[in-house]
């Protein structure tokens, strides 16, 4: 029996194995993903992002518990950075989520970025799809600790939650660009700290400056103390409101169109690149081109044009 079939029958080992194949770039994963695809598209994907140390993992743990209480099955994809020097990684997000480890209604997978920028790993989307096919009602994606423009999550998640903490800098940081433009819900975590109310106010002021029409979604700023479970019900309520808004307003159509178009373009880009690049690494042509570039007997623009012309012009 293939992995996809076993996954659809609830085999957890098959699911984690397929995720490994995806992450390691095995081409054997493609037919399995094709087989799972008709069973995807049902999960509610929540993105949780914010700077390192903001409490994202603890918040994910609490939100997971809240959805479990509502009887929902929860998948978690937690991403941590790969060392650019050794290729190794310490994936420590599970430390905050251990109480769910032996709950069969929860599946947690840690992924390393493996050099991918943007706050996610290259494999994240496909891993989310596997969880979707495992009939997870809610899939929470926790990005690496991000700074300013690692905003890939917004294209993947129905609802993006941006987690901030008091005292990270003045309000000019917030108006530069980036994560303050992607939140559907904002959270000031560690709200027991002295400066919490000021941070909430500053965020609210920034958000008011967004030019939103009446019929647009207006992001709110919530306060939580994730380590004590304070504010979690309210947060989940607000996320659910956003999800309802997506459907009630019809925005879901636009979201799905953009998401699917992007997935297609990314896949095409990757496959085209491999199609052209892989043969020349095998047949020595790549080496020749590099040598030519080093001695400046050819320029990179002409080298690429020549290669593409050879590859895609039909031979007479």
């Amino acid at each position, binding site marked *: 029996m293939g992995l996809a079939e076993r996954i659809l029958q609830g085999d957890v080992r098959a699911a984690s194995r397929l995720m490994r194949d995806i992450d390691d770039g095995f081409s054997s994963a493609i037919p399995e993903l094709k087989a799972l695809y008709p069973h995807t598209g049902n999960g509610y994907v929540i993105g949780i992002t914010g700077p390192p140390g903001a409490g994202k993992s603890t918040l994910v743990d609490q939100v997971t518990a809240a959805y479990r209480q509502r009887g929902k099955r929860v998948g978690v994809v937690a991403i941590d950075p790969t060392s650019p020097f*050794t290729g*190794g990684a*310490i*994936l420590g997000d599970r*430390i905050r989520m*251990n109480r769910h*480890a032996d709950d069969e209604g929860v599946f947690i997978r840690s992924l390393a970025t493996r050099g991918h920028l943007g706050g996610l790993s290259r494999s994240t989307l496909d891993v989310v799809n596997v969880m979707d096919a495992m009939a997870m009602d809610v899939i929470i994606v926790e990005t690496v600790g991000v700074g300013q423009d690692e905003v890939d999550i917004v294209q993947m998640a129905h609802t993006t939650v941006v987690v901030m903490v008091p005292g990270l800098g003045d309000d000019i940081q917030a108006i530069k660009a980036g994560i303050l433009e992607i939140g559907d819900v904002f959270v000031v975590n560690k709200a027991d700290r002295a400066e919490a109310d000021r941070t909430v106010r500053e965020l609210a002021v920034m958000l008011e400056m967004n030019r939103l029409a009446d019929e647009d979604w207006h992001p709110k700023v919530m306060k939580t103390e994730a380590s004590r479970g304070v504010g979690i019900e309210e947060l989940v309520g607000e996320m659910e409101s956003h999800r309802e808004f997506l459907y009630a307003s019809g925005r879901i159509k636009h979201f799905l169109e953009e998401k699917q178009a992007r997935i297609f373009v990314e896949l095409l880009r990757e496959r085209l690149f491999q199609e052209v690049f892989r043969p020349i690494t095998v047949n020595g042509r790549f080496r020749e081109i590099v040598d030519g570039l080093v001695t400046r007997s050819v320029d990179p623009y002409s080298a690429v044009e020549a290669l593409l012309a050879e590859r895609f012009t039909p031979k007479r």
Partner: protein
Amino acid sequence: MAERKLRVLVGKPGLDGHDRGAKVVARAFRDAGFEVIYTGLHQTPEQIVSAAIQEDVDCVGLSILSGAHNTLLPRVCQLFREKKADDIIVFGGGVIPPDDIPGLKAAGVKEVFTPGTSTEDIVAWVRQNVATH
């Protein structure tokens, strides 16, 4: 061509609260280029086994300083067998008397590292004895 990246879970079963050693080993594994799932303190054998399966790791390294190794390590091995996941290799480290080691190995623990072992030796052992699956 695609290549397997070695994944290892480092955790601390049981009640002792000293995780310095586990963290040092986790860091050494990271520097060796492995992906390390670090689950932290106070894990039950059930939590460890279930996390190892969800993470599809090749091996599990458990640090025990509490003296409960004769209970906890065999229990982890037994649970892996019950879940038909005993291809995941279990090794341990900590304050473990030499007399206990043969019994642990008989229970399925592949290797036991006692105080004084260098991180280089542990990394080298993993490279030699753990094949990515």
